[in-house]
């Protein structure tokens, strides 16, 4: 019964995702594509955080590697269909190398080491002007076609690119979903619960964590490789540690202990950001109408988004560690209980 409801719900959900471009304006499609790619980025981060218990604070490094490799290859006229996998492989290699050292440490030391490695990657893309374009990044990354010989598949235009990202996202999310339910995924969760015990059931803890780190880097790289053509640019901000904080916040917002948590977090995060940023001028105008505030407040485009993000995160962290998804689960459970009681 429950399985049937779940499969019907997912079919309806998929249908909606595929039909959205027919209903929405181009601007909303941009927002949706952003949600898909940042959602994938957050999912990849949560393989390490929620499932393995490792807080990576340098996850942007792998996202940026994917973005830069892909952007660079597109600029030298390599077809999109090859540039994206190359970006993924690039991210995998960088994650494997940096992860090899990072997993030697635990907890805060792990977080700090990943942060340090992340800033090293940032410095490289910022300074190596000949290849990365320095502070401007690689600009005008605008592929028009998938680039399969003998087959024209347009990817320019918001709807086309949205469909491309949707398909890639679904495949990638399905792979991650299989991974967390696999024997490997079960051991990752066991390592989160008690790493010492894991060693004494005969597991090479470092190798396990290293593998998880590399897989997480790979999927972050995939998100990045699709992000650069979407934004038409690969810039150093994507490698900065503040960008590493984005999947952390999304995951905490949505809930780390559930597979869908980071996705919900990414959706709420980006929707709120959009709503607040496009309406904040009304707030400032209202405030400026008060006699105690200077009228100039109305003209200054002060950003409210981070302030609201903080306001939203504080109660979640203090009172609802499971994130929004735990709240949704609780509501559904309550609803089910009421249905059952009515059924009697």
């Amino acid at each position, binding site marked *: 019964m429950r399985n049937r409801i779940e499969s019907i719900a997912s079919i309806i959900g998929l249908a909606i995702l595929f039909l959205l471009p027919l209903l929405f304006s181009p601007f909303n499609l941009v927002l949706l594509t952003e949600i898909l790619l940042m959602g994938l980025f957050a999912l990849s981060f949560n393989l390490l955080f929620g499932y393995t218990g490792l807080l990576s604070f340098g996850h942007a490094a792998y996202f940026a590697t994917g973005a830069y490799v892909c952007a660079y290859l597109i600029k030298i006229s390599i077809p999109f269909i090859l540039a994206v996998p190359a970006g993924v492989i690039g991210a995998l290699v960088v994650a494997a190398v940096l992860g090899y050292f990072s997993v030697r440490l635990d907890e805060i030391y792990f977080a700090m080491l990943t942060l340090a490695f992340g800033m090293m990657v940032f410095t490289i893309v910022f300074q190596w002007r000949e290849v990365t374009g320095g502070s401007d990044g690689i600009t005008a990354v605008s592929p028009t076609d998938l680039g399969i010989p003998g087959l024209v598949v347009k990817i320019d235009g918001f709807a086309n690119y949205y469909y491309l990202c949707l398909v890639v996202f679904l495949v990638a999310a399905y792979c991650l979903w*299989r991974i967390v339910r*696999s024997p490997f995924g079960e051991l990752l969760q066991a390592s989160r*619960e008690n790493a010492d*015990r894991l060693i*004494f*059931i*005969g597991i090479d*803890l470092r190798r396990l964590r290293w593998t998880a780190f590399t897989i997480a880097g790979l999927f972050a790289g995939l998100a990045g490789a699709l992000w650069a053509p979407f934004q038409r640019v690969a810039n150093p901000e994507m490698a900065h540690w503040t960008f590493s904080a984005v999947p952390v916040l999304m995951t905490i917002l949505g809930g780390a202990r559930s597979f869908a948590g980071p996705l919900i977090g990414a959706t709420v995060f980006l929707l709120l950001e959009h709503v607040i940023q496009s309406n904040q001028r009304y707030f400032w105008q209202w405030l400026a109408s008060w006699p105690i505030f200077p009228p100039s407040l109305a003209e200054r485009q002060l950003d409210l988004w981070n302030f609201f993000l903080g306001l939203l995160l504080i109660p979640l962290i203090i009172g609802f560690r499971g994130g929004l998804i735990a709240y949704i689960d609780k509501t559904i459970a309550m609803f089910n209980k009421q249905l059952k009681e009515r059924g009697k």
Partner: protein
Amino acid sequence: MAAEIILQVTNLVKDFSGIRAVNNVSFTLSTGTITAVIGPNGAGKTTLYQLISGQILPTSGSVKLKGKEITGLAPHKIVKAGIGRSFQITSVFPGLTARQNVRAALISRIGAQFDWWHCVESDRPLNIAVDKILALVGIQHLASTAVQILSHGDRALVEIAIVLACKPRLILLDEPTAGMSREETGNMVQLIRHLQQKTGCTFLITEHDMEVVFNLAENIIVMCQGKILAMGRSDEIRTNPDVRHAYLGTIST
């Protein structure tokens, strides 16, 4: 009867910055026996366990399992070689269910740790094997319960099930009845004896409760200040005047 020797510890020494925690310890264990290591606090029992299970490296000496040198191997490799252990402070995977706890160990045992595609929940042979192990220690009814909400006694049983899932030849138990009620202690003693008969494993047990020791162990090793004070059959140790003086004397006046 010349039983096969499973564990051979030779001249094992461990120094901790000037303190000799384990001092020239040698002993052998025969396959299928239960041996207790006793001694006052600080006698070196836990250090001895850490040395055998590879948590720390010995200053000198060697440990052989079935004639194969295991000194200096990484702990997870020693587990694979056939030594399973429990901890003085029960060590389980608290946020997971009892079934997941045992399943994790079994995944390691069958070498499926890098299988990232098959669904563990729907792997019937794996789950049947897990249920068998849970039944062996008598906690099949707790299979779907998160281990963190179990009582201390039940958690200790989960830990033993985890150890069994690794299919060890030698099981090191570090104070298996610590912090347990009389009833739980009795059950644990019965369980260990049952497991010895059922699995043919060799057991090495540290224990403070003398009743448990004399109830279970065929052989006893008495440690004091890092050295072996005496070892032998349980009844010999019970009547050994040195041991009575040094250790038992303090409790049985």
